[in-house]
């Protein structure tokens, strides 16, 4: 049995490796492939065809996959009878066209093989326990990536996934504070603003600075940090402000935090647009020409890692103390928990990830302007937290995607004028979407006061229990 499993795992890993290597090497094989397709040398005799072929090679040199694919299709469509696209060529073309999907699938199989192998030699049983969640997460990431390469990264679905992932992070960060520690803060947009601006200011390409900061002599900062370092810096900047605000406010009763953070968010928005800070913040003008992401995988990976860290904190002894403070401050303090320290810790962590979320949002938008970070943004995130359930991370994540999908996509049609036959539907015009959206939200908040998840988490165990009612009935009713 053991040897069978080992052989199976080895086979899986081998297949996966072959798949990944084949997919990834298809990029370098394209020039050779073009030659083999054109075995008769038809292109050499036809300048138009030669040009189309060169365009593929140029795009390849440029490194833009989308361009390569587009010019390749044109080349193939233009001279179907003169090009030989049968046999191995067809296979290699398939591999080239589906490279991202095949790589993703290969990596997923690699993970599966590694887990299987690990489980065989695992004595503590830890790998076996982690295998299913790890596989599901791997499947999710591979699936999202494949989905993107199939439907195209500009589609509404992928846009919603990108923005949803970012909102999931900021909602989870807010939930850490409001839902798990019981501190009511309304500064989320302010901390996101700091994160977004810190990221943008320190990553704008040096050669574009003169253009971006055209009214401020190219600005003060004259260097650009790597993206990941700037993301961390964005979080750190937001965390630093949280630290400062917390020093006086977190010693007072909790209500003051809401007022202080709301005021802070309003002030910071004004300050960042102040002309005197123009050399740094570009005043009330846009910041642009900083790194952005083009694959949905980026926000998924960054937000996923951050949410995972927050989840780890919540399940640690520190997270238990946060929940104790939420449940009963007096008792928590009597158990030796330093209220100020722990509130400060929760506030700083939450703000750090709000800052990272803000930076991701800036990357998503490709331009950023302080005026957009209004308190309405904070309320939006607060709504997500409430809808998902105060004290439920999975609730916040699910609610984020639902919320973004509803507001950006599913309810879009309400904004367009529509007619049934010759009857023009009343109300269906720009802005109606937000009315309907507000009504839905009101209904959700009124009738599902505890949100989708309450303070429970969505887990495999829970789903399994739901699916087999006979087994689950006993323990929790």
């Amino acid at each position, binding site marked *: 049995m053991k040897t069978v499993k080992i052989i199976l795992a080895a086979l899986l890993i081998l297949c996966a490796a072959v798949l990944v290597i084949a997919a990834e090497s298809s990029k370098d094989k394209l020039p050779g492939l073009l030659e083999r397709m054109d075995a008769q040398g038809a292109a050499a005799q036809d300048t138009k065809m030669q040009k189309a072929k060169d365009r593929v090679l140029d795009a390849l040199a440029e490194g833009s996959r989308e361009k390569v694919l587009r010019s390749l299709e044109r080349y193939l469509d233009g001279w179907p009878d003169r090009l030989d696209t049968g046999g191995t060529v067809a296979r290699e073309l398939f591999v080239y066209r589906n490279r991202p999907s095949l790589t993703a699938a290969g990596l997923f199989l690699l993970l599966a093989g590694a887990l299987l192998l690990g489980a065989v030699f695992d004595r503590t049983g830890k790998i076996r326990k982690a295998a299913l969640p790890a596989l599901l997460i791997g499947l999710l990431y591979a699936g999202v990536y494949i989905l993107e390469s199939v439907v195209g990264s500009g589609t509404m679905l992928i846009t919603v996934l990108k923005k949803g992932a970012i909102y999931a992070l900021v909602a989870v960060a807010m939930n850490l504070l409001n839902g798990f520690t019981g501190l009511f803060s309304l500064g989320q947009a302010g901390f996101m603003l700091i994160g977004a601006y810190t990221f943008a200011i320190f990553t704008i390409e040096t050669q574009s600075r003169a253009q971006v900061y055209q009214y401020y002599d190219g600005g003060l900062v004259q260097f650009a940090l790597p993206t990941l370092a700037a993301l961390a810096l964005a979080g750190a900047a937001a965390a630093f402000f949280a630290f400062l605000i917390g020093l006086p406010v977190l010693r007072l009763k909790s209500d003051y935090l809401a007022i202080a953070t709301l005021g802070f968010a309003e002030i910071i928005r004004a300050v960042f647009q102040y002309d005197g800070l123009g050399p740094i913040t570009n005043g009330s003008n846009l910041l642009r020409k900083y790194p952005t992401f083009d694959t949905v995988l980026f926000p998924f990976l960054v937000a996923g890692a951050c949410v995972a860290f927050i989840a780890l*904190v919540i399940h*640690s*002894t520190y997270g238990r*103390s946060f*929940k104790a403070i939420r449940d009963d401050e007096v008792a928590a*303090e009597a158990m030796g*928990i330093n209220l100020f320290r722990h509130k400060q810790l929760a506030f700083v962590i939450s703000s750090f990830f709000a800052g990272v979320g803000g930076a991701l949002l800036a990357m998503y938008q490709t331009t950023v302007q302080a005026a957009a970070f209004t308190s309405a943004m904070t309320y939006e995130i607060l709504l997500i937290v409430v809808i998902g359930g105060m*004290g439920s991370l999975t609730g916040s994540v699910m609610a984020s995607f639902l919320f973004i999908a509803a507001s950006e996509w599913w309810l879009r049609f309400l904004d367009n004028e529509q007619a049934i036959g010759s009857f023009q539907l009343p109300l269906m015009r720009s802005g109606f979407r937000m009315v309907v959206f507000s009504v839905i939200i009101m209904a959700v908040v009124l009738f599902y006061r505890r949100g989708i998840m309450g303070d429970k988490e969505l887990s495999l165990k829970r789903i399994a229990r739901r699916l087999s009612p006979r087994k689950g009935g006993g323990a929790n009713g």
Partner: protein
Amino acid sequence: MAERVLELDRVTMQFGGVVAVDSLSMRVDRGEIVALIGPNGAGKTTAFNCITGVYTPTSGQVRYLGNLIISNRPQGRMKELYAGSDKAFPAETVVNTPDRITKMGIARTFQNIRLFKTQTVFENVLIATHLHKTSNLFTAAFRLNYREEQQMRRHALEMLEVVGLADLKDEKATSLPYGKQRRLEIARALATKPQLLLLDEPAAGMNPQETDDLGRFITGIKNQFGLTVFLIEHHMDLVMDISDRVYVIDFGKLIAHGVPEEVQDNPDVITAYLGVEEE
């Protein structure tokens, strides 16, 4: 002479015009079980709150194991308002927050049960082991404190076994019956590894049988953990049964003090307290 664990020196706590505790001086020695009794509203809980740092007394001092942990005199508005009977104030001001006092080794339970209501029985006790952690946020988040975490869990479970709630550990704390919630509060206090245990009406809401068991239980944990116990209690049988000495207060003032038999026969106590109880 036995070691002095706790000493209150003319502690006064005044809320606005109400003097809830008036120039109260008491002591508790190592290994003793001392009871604090008095009619409703006498200021017993307030005295506990002054010891544990929940309130800063208007005036007076508290010593723990010989160290001054709390010291204050009337400040600001209180200088004019002060209505306590003692007018000689300490010079120092020493303030400690409840968490620091718990870390020093004074643990307490609450009269109006204060469990962490969304948490299980086990989690309630586990939280009380947090104060002795050596891990920081990152070592705790990434489970590099695995050993310590195991120790915390083992200790919490031991405390539950001590109070006899181990088999209910995964129940929600607030779903327990009243008497068991009180025991859970004791388990939680014990988990902080105290030297001095303050119990605020641990038998409240218990029937005679449960009260009887509780008496034996308190003596038991006192011996097992080498504790000193200071308790507020209305059940006279329990007080007379287990305490070495008794303090009686009324309207914040000490009216009697001594071994249980002495106090029981004191005419002041009978009028102020026992008389009320037995009418």
